[in-house]
């Protein structure tokens, strides 16, 4: 198997692109792909200060690496969810990556906002699932930490996006379809959010991390087991195996037609009476969660 670009020994086969590449050419290919994605989807402008949300996993650490390599001023944010050994290991990976690259890492701890409680206990007290609480808290803390930055970047990859898209279509969640985008614009105190890896598959990101020597956490979050997103990813990868390029076509087709789902009028947002975060209600969902949980501490 020969590399299409340099004719050396290829190490990876990319059926979706009809390409076989060696290690060096694969890194060049992926960096170019991310640079083009950023340009064509107008995700970042030169000189913008980027906060990369890092979990210690392959996608977010690779995204941070890619943005630094592409010359962006990118700092990291790690949110300690307090999920036992999983969170400890994840933090170690994020810290050691930052040290290796000489990049600045900011750390937020969920426990500091909930009277010493971590995600699993917060979820129990709020009678909600850990994943829904985790999503809400992460969005809030990301935005809060992003105040001194122009934009927040997350490591959502092509597989994440198409599995989310499939779930939204299967359940006809048109409001979620309207919000699904590679870039969510600024709204007053809400920072712009971008996903520069939306055209890179999960396998490509794992290969990039391995080749670049990025030490990432291999363990899965214990709460993600049996999630529907894994089922959708598996179904989509079955289709991808039979018909390479399916995931990219599915997502790029959606990008062309997503405006059909966008509501003509955006919901009115107002500052939360408690913290000032923009919300559709008087008190934002983060403050309501905080009040509910702290009442029971």
């Amino acid at each position, binding site marked *: 198997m020969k590399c299409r670009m340099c004719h050396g020994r290829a190490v990876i086969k990319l059926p979706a692109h009809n390409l076989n590449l060696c290690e060096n050419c694969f890194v060049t290919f992926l960096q170019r792909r991310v640079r083009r994605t950023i340009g064509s989807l107008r995700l970042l402008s030169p000189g913008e200060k980027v906060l990369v949300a890092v979990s210690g996993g392959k996608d977010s650490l690779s995204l941070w690496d890619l943005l630094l390599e592409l010359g962006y001023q990118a700092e990291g944010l790690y949110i300690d969810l307090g999920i036992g050994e999983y969170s400890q290991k994840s933090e170690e990976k994020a810290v050691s990556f930052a040290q290796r690259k000489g990049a600045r890492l900011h750390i937020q701890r969920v426990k500091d906002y909930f009277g010493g409680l971590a995600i699993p206990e917060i979820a129990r007290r709020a009678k909600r699932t850990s994943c829904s609480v985790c999503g809400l808290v992460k969005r809030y803390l990301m935005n809060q930490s992003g105040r001194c930055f122009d934009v927040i970047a997350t490591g959502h990859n092509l597989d994440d996006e198409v599995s989310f898209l499939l779930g939204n279509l299967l359940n006809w969640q048109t409001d979620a379809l309207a919000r699904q985008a590679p870039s969510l614009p600024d709204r007053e105190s809400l920072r712009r959010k971008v996903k520069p890896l939306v055209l890179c598959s999960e396998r490509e990101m794992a290969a990039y991390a*391995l080749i670049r020597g990025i030490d990432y956490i291999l363990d*899965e979050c214990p709460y993600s087991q049996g999630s529907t997103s894994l089922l959708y990813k598996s179904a989509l990868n079955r289709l991808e195996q039979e018909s390479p390029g399916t995931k990219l076509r599915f997502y790029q087709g959606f990008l062309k037609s997503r405006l059909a789902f966008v509501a003509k009028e955006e919901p009115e947002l107002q500052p939360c009476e408690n913290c000032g975060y923009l919300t559709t209600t008087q008190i934002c969902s983060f403050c309501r969660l905080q009040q509910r949980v702290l009442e029971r501490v």
Partner: protein
Amino acid sequence: MEHSSTVRVSYLGKVYEFEGRLRAEKVLQKLNLNPEEVLVIQGNRLVPPDELVEGEIEIRPVISGG
């Protein structure tokens, strides 16, 4: 004296052993794995699907949930 080789595959905490040298893609077929969902690794090196492997290899899942 004949040299007999084996492939020892670690995948999700289990070890599978196959007789003889095998192409990496054949190992995935034997374990019924979708090449889109894993990487084949030897040492810290990515193993191409057409490479004949022997000795210890790791099959690393690349799909994460959440």
